[in-house]
């Protein structure tokens, strides 16, 4: 069972002139931000009443504060004329975040919820602009935890240059969810003449990746504490829209871009190879993988190519642009370790082949099932 209401709740519109001043007074009181004194989330915080209003005001509105959110209508209203100056298509995406644990080295569910959706938008060549924030809270969640997550979202949004403009909160019975789930949807505007897509790869194109692979997956695995390992691996959770800007400056004809989240690099390369009906060849030697991540994988029998990332993207560009894109990506902080990792070939169609350091080739297939549960 869920109890619902939305962040926005406008005051009654039935105003009569005789009651004008009284109502104005009441409205002003209603409008003033409410302070939350509770220590834990209860079903009352999802009931649509005062407790909920306090929660929304104190946790969300105070942190996400912006001119589109503050009218607290049931929806954000966005000026079209302004959007149309930025490009010719709207990019629209949604993603849900259920990571366990909520806090991990390098980020938390809040940073993930902002950066993940920002990156999904950016991969289309869009400028990410506005996000929604849907929260599903488990009864008993600590308010302090929720506050920390909201602050993380506020910071991540500021860094990525996006605004959280509308939202929704639900509280479910203890056990009906695991602490806190977040859904963010986002919209952005795609620049004219830019249309990267998984089915546009052609033999000869070059493939780049913007740095170390598998850090997020390894960090989450270790943060769960089941393995009793200590490392300094941190999640790579970061927004990639700034890096995409640099890429598009030198190569608006970029063939494909995708962030290598669940399923890692191997999954993205397979998706590209299958969508385009081409082969992909990757050099094992040029794959940037940290020693510690490699070590964790050796211990557990995992393959870093399948580990999740939250701030890594695979970029495919025409061969003649590869060097310029490599230089441009390296000039941005989120692309400082960019490597050219391989190229698109004619055959075998739909297949990713890794050239090992020994000169042998091995197929890097799609993952069957999960390497790890719930990592993003």
């Amino acid at each position, binding site marked *: 069972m869920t109890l619902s209401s939305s962040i926005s709740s406008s005051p009654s519109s039935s105003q009569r002139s005789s009651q004008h001043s009284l109502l104005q007074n009441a409205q002003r009181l209603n409008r003033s931000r409410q302070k939350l004194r509770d220590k834990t989330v209860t079903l009352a915080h999802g009931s649509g009443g005062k407790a909920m209003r306090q929660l929304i005001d104190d946790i969300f509105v105070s942190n996400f504060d912006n001119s589109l959110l503050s009218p607290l209508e049931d929806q954000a209203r966005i000026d079209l004329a302004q959007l149309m100056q930025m490009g010719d298509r709207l990019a629209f995406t949604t993603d849900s975040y259920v990571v366990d644990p909520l806090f991990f080295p390098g980020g938390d569910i809040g940073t993930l919820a902002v950066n993940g959706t920002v990156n999904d938008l950016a991969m289309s060549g869009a400028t990410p602009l506005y996000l929604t924030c849907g929260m599903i809270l488990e009864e008993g969640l600590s308010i302090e935890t929720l506050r920390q997550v909201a602050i993380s979202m506020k910071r991540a949004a500021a860094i990525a240059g996006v605004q959280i403009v509308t939202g929704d909160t639900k509280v479910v019975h203890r056990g009906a969810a695991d602490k806190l789930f977040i859904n963010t949807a986002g919209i952005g505007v795609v620049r004219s003449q830019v249309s990267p897509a998984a089915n546009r790869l052609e033999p000869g194109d070059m493939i780049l990746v913007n740095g170390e692979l598998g850090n997020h997956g390894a960090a989450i695995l270790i943060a769960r504490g089941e393995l009793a390992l200590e490392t300094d691996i941190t999640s790579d959770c970061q927004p990639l829209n700034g890096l995409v800007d640099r890429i598009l400056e030198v190569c608006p004809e970029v063939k494909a871009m995708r962030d290598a989240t669940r399923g890692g690099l191997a999954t993205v390369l397979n998706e590209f190879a299958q969508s385009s009906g081409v082969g992909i060849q990757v050099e094992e030697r040029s794959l940037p993988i940290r020693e510690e991540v490699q070590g964790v994988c050796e211990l557990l029998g995992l393959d870093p190519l399948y580990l999740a990332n939250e701030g890594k993207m695979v970029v495919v560009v025409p061969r003649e642009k590869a060097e310029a894109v490599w230089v441009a990506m390296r000039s941005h902080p989120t692309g400082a370790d960019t490597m050219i990792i391989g190229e698109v070939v004619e055959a075998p*169609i739909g*297949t990713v*082949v890794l050239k090992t350091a020994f000169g*042998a*080739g*091995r197929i890097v297939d799609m993952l069957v099932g999960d390497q790890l549960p719930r990592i993003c």
Partner: protein
Amino acid sequence: MKYVDEFRDPQKASALLQEIQQISDRIHTQRQRPLKIMEICGGHTHSIFKYGLEDLLPPTVELVHGPGCPVCIMPKGRLDDAIAIATHPNVIFTTFGDVLRVPGSEQSLLQAKAAGADVRMVYSPLDALQIARQHPDQEVVFFGIGFETTAPSTALTILQAEAEQVRNFSLFCNHVLVVPAMEALLENPDLQLDGFVGPGHVSMVIGSDPYTVIAGRYRKPLVVAGFEPLDILQAVWMLMQQFEQGRCEVENQYTRLVEAGGNSVALDAIQRVFEVRDQFEWRGLGSIPESGLKMRSPYAQFDAEVKFDLPGRSVADHKACACGEILKGVLKPWDCKVFGTACTPENPIGSCMVSSEGACAAYYKYGRLSTQEKLPQPKRVMTAVH
């Protein structure tokens, strides 16, 4: 990476490969058919595929992937027993991850979990014992699986449970022994093997001495090897030297970890807790005498086979499945009618397709490059954006 890169040095590998090629050229002036070398351990199978070693060896040296993946040789009947325990009310069933997807006669543990059984993945039997301490009101059962490699940690966990008097913990014991299985293979007249790469991890526990029967009675040379690509190539090179010089010995390439007499602490633990079963059924190989371990009677309070009433039925494998012949090294995975079509890692019919150490899964995952013309083309799949 420290201590690992040394065993993955491409230059050293290419030097070894050259020597292997030269010996092979000399041997094959007198000999027609390729030399068949079986690796008996699933860990070796995995490394061979991961590093593409098969493609680097001369065609005159053929690697045969033996029944060394403990998941792959687990018969359906034992899985049905495991599922019967797992679906018992008030049971928390714990297991290593790769057992979860192995098909029983009706379902896998993963499907039983989806249907409501409390099945949990653990990384060690000690994790299972910890769950038992945390849930004193529930019976926690651990699915013990593996060769002599994992048997000591299972045995030590039982001894720990006994010391702490954890009464709600038990073991469903499926540990198996490597040498009896090799002997059963060698008794098979179909098999044409020239030598073995011996299992490194098992030998860490049992030592290299128990293989003298293989070199003595069955006249097959054996080299115990580690799991890095250079380990395996060096073991092949050592075998090639034995072939050329007409020697038939047990040699140890994995000297950094394996001693002739094995690890006495580990062997003692196995000895204390387990005894050899008269018979144990291996998938595809049938019942092999004295090839499995069961718990000794003083530990009956920790024995799931005593605590639970199990169906204990022997279930025939799927008719089309050639797992047995593949495990014996008689057929290659692509010789199986259902390989890559009805039987895939997504929907495994035989257990060789389940574990990443299984010969079929390894060929499916890594091996399709060199064997691609023999196999069905990959299907196009819908892509998803996350």
